[in-house]
């Protein structure tokens, strides 16, 4: 299960949606706007997306990771729009009867989302604003 939102993320609602009575563990990852990037101060980030394609790509990733970890259930929500330091841009929940699969599935999911889902961010700080990944930028968008 995955979707985009323009609202603040409620990670606990996501956990409740996905947990089953047979699950003994969940791992929740949240990506959060931080106050720096490659040594530059950051105040806010604008997240843009090719929405229908981003939704398709996220769901493809969720289904592929779930097929690799059959005991795992996954839920992903990515927020778009203007976010400030401390706001969560993404939440991923992986739950499973045993913890190892949840850790692995959660991490695989965020790694793959960062590789292929058409979402972009424009960082804004005291030095101006810039789309990450273009013109000599690092293209990593790491968090």
């Amino acid at each position, binding site marked *: 299960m995955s979707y985009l939102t323009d609202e603040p993320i409620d990670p606990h609602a996501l956990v409740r949606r996905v947990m089953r009575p047979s699950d003994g563990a969940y791992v929740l990852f949240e*990506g959060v706007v931080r106050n720096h990037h490659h040594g530059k101060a950051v105040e806010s980030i604008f*997240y*843009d*997306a*090719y929405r*229908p*394609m*981003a939704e*398709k790509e996220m769901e493809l990733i969720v289904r592929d990771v779930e097929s690799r970890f059959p005991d795992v259930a996954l839920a992903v929500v*990515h927020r778009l729009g203007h976010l400030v330091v401390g706001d969560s*841009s*993404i939440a991923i929940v992986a739950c499973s009867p045993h913890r190892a699969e949840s850790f692995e599935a959660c991490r695989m999911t*965020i790694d793959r*989302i*960062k*590789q*292929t*889902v*058409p*979402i*972009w*961010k*424009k960082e804004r700080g005291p030095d101006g604003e810039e*789309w*990450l*990944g*273009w*013109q000599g*930028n690092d*293209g*990593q*968008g790491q*968090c």
Partner: protein
Amino acid sequence: MRTMKVRLLFFAVLRDIAGTDMHELALSDGTTARDVWQSLRGQYAKLSDYTQPPMIAINETYATPETVLRDGDELAFIPPVAGG
């Protein structure tokens, strides 16, 4: 030679450069995604140095630059993604 209509979408830095989020293109048969990129390089000075196109999506699915476009396709050039 017949022509076809293709919607070209712009996102993120490319939308800023193009100053719009969409072009309706009228293309001749056989045009590839790479051909459209080359034409954009002529149109926008800020793209002229980019001899290679970024990632390409056709109808919301990743595709190669050599893909031949078809009438009604939705084409997008995908700048380096930075989700998460």
